[in-house]
């Protein structure tokens, strides 16, 4: 399996955690992005994610390779959902193992920041008032 993966199915967190396990690692930092019930002051009912899958996977793998080059880490994995998600659903998971916690935290943060900036995935929020809209990277509306 690839280290960065775009998934149309629910993310299996415990399987990912098992893949990260390593006797050399003393630290594991993870990040989970959950579907939140609000954004920029509006109630959110659900989300849809679209992805340009081949480029998203290639760009995601590049980001993980950059993290391995920049930080003293042992392993790094990331999975991002596509499709329809409800409030509370897991949209993205990042996990990083390392000998020491500083590198694990820094690499985990780097990966999610870069994924949000660079990977071709788009979020369409469906609001409580019936409207919907595509979002910019800073979570403000496109138009």
């Amino acid at each position, binding site marked *: 399996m690839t280290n960065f993966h775009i998934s149309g199915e629910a993310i299996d967190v415990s399987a990912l955690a098992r893949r990260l396990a390593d006797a050399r690692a003393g630290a594991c930092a993870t990040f989970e*992005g959950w579907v939140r019930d609000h954004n920029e002051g509006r109630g959110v009912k659900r989300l849809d*994610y*679209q*992805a*340009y899958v*081949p*480029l998203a996977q*290639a*760009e995601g793998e590049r980001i993980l390779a950059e993290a391995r080059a920049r930080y003293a880490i042992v392993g790094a994995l990331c999975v*991002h959902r596509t499709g329809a998600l409800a409030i509370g659903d897991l*949209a*993205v998971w990042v996990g990083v193992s390392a000998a020491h916690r500083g590198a694990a935290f820094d690499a985990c943060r780097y990966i*999610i920041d870069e*994924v*949000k*900036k*660079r*990977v*071709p*995935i*788009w*979020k*369409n929020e469906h609001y409580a008032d019936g409207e919907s809209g*595509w*979002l*910019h*990277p800073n*979570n403000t509306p*496109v*138009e």
Partner: protein
Amino acid sequence: MTYRVLYFATLRDQAGRDEESIVSDAADVSAFYEELRGRHGFSMPREKLRVAVNGEFAGWDRALRDGDEVVFIPPVSGG
């Protein structure tokens, strides 16, 4: 030449389709986007988009060849 185009997010909504094949004389990515803009009325200016050709990021001056797959990439919002 015939180019394959995939649409995502706002561009997909405005084009009213996921993808299409287009016979075009546009020699590069830049000319091709202007042609599609005229056809679908895309509201998004070029400065907000990135471009990929055949699954890899490319510049706006990238020359196109018959059969190329072209994707105009709106600002992303994963995570």
